[in-house]
């Protein structure tokens, strides 16, 4: 017996390009918003709640609310890095349930490629006064260091291999070949991944997600409005968020906070992990997917390597269809923030609107999990359980 949703995702839109040299950030935000509204069959005048991250230019929601001439009753600019937009879906549902807004718009857009600031491949530029940055700053560490440290420890503790991690990328490429908008559409093999250059041993170039311009938007609304729109009904039936950090130097680097958000979201939804037909898992790096599979309970801790091997994540033939748009590893990682595209592909699956080659038959229950920030040292996992209603 699943929960009756207090809110539904009725609009989902992913900007089509992966490089935007000639469009401003504000225009991309606007095009994402209008795309999601058109998908829902609603107009900008009906939006009374706005949710955005720091990718939106200006102070919090102010500039984009002004640019789009929004008439707002509610806004929320919670920033947990890449998981922000996943968090925003839950917060929008909460605000709707509390009567604070009726139609919530969630946007993401960025153009790191056009602006030459592909953060994932460069030294961090975050505030060095941030106290937890003692970890990274003096020792030549970049974003992927902590992910590589997690991978190295996972390999040591559980016997996970580079070849097993490579299977996560191989599955993403199998899906991306069917996505004409994906940045990387070529099929790759395990050998391709492990023979690609080491960036930060044990992670190779093909263990890392792409850097793309673009973005997307979502529309979340109350049941009465959702049911009037004659669109497939995708309801939020469970959600959970948390943070996990260094704990004063005593952290478990091979367990993420998803180990807490997954069970809580599933319990709220009233479903079991085995009921999930499709999963969008934040794939900043291959190891990130492995960790989430274990921490969410799709497999036991340490068995992620075996779970993903031999095409375990390929839709149709594998154990669990994961990231059927090609994910951040092959399709899109707009503005270095993957939480938005994770929700969008889950909505496509639940509507039956994914590419036929990757559509999960009878997909009525999906899980979205995003890891914002960085594993081990500071991250905010957010889990959503979404259900298709007739």
């Amino acid at each position, binding site marked *: 017996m699943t929960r009756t949703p207090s809110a539904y995702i009725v609009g989902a839109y992913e900007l089509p390009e992966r490089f935007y040299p000639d469009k401003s950030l504000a225009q991309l935000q606007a095009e994402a918003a209008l795309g999601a509204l058109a998908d829902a069959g609603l107009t900008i005048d009906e939006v009374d709640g706005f949710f955005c991250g720091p990718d939106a230019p200006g102070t919090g929601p102010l500039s984009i609310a002004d640019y789009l001439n929004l008439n707002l009753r509610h806004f929320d600019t919670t920033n947990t890095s890449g998981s922000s937009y996943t968090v925003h879906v839950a917060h929008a549902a909460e605000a709707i349930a509390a009567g604070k807004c009726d139609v919530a718009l969630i946007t993401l857009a960025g153009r790191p490629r056009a602006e030459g600031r592909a953060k994932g491949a460069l030294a961090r530029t975050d505030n060095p*006064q941030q106290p937890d940055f003692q970890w990274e700053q*003096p020792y*030549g560490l970049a974003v992927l260091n902590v992910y590589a440290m997690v991978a190295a420890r996972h390999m040591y503790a559980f016997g996970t291999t580079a070849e097993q991690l490579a299977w996560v990328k191989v599955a993403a490429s199998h899906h991306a070949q069917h996505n004409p908008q994906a940045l990387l559409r070529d099929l790759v093999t395990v050998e391709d991944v492990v023979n690609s250059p080491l960036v930060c041993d044990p992670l190779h170039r093909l263990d890392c997600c792409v850097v793309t311009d673009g973005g997307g938007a979502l529309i979340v609304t109350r049941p009465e409005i959702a049911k009037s729109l004659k669109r497939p009904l995708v309801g939020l039936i469970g959600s959970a968020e948390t943070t996990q950090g260094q704990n004063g130097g005593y952290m478990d680097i091979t367990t993420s906070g998803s180990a807490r958000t997954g069970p809580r979201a599933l319990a709220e939804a009233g479903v079991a992990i085995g009921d999930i037909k499709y999963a969008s898992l934040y794939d900043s790096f291959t190891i990130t997917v492995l960790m989430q599979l274990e921490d969410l309970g799709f497999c036991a801790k340490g068995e992620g390597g075996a779970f993903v091997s031999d095409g375990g994540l390929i839709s149709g033939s594998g154990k669990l269809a994961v990231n059927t748009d090609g994910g951040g590893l092959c399709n899109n990682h707009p503005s270095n923030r993957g939480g938005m595209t994770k929700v969008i592909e889950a909505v496509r699956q639940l509507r039956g609107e994914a590419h036929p080659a990757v559509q999960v038959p009878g997909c009525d229950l999906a899980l979205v999990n995003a890891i914002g920030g960085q594993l081990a040292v500071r991250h905010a996992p957010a889990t959503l359980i979404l259900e298709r209603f007739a």
Partner: protein
Amino acid sequence: MGISKIVMGLDDKPMWASIERGAMELQKCGECGAFRYPPAPVCPHDLSADAEWTPVSGKGTILSWVVFHKQYFEDHVPPYNSVAIELEEGPIVVSQLRGDEPEGSWIGQRVELIYAEHAGRTQHFARWLKPEAA
């Protein structure tokens, strides 16, 4: 590209001064006795502000390690490593192994902190304690 930076907030000054002297001190909680890292005004376990800067042995075990093959900073030319060390006193710190390197995986190997100049500042590095010396 830029030079890697240290983090020097108000809470960090005593630690960096101790590193400058070649003997790192961390805060030891006056309430529960736990050492903490990075420096912070209160203990993350009991929120006690009572703490004493206390020298650490500098000895620990490698929890994880990576080797960079891509350059991100002017002062770190690849290949360079970083290691997460679980100190005998408890906290996990990050450093860089210098000198002899273990064969195979470095995880579980014993190390001790050494101190050296880098990019115009003193910081700690790690030296491998070969099994016969550990």
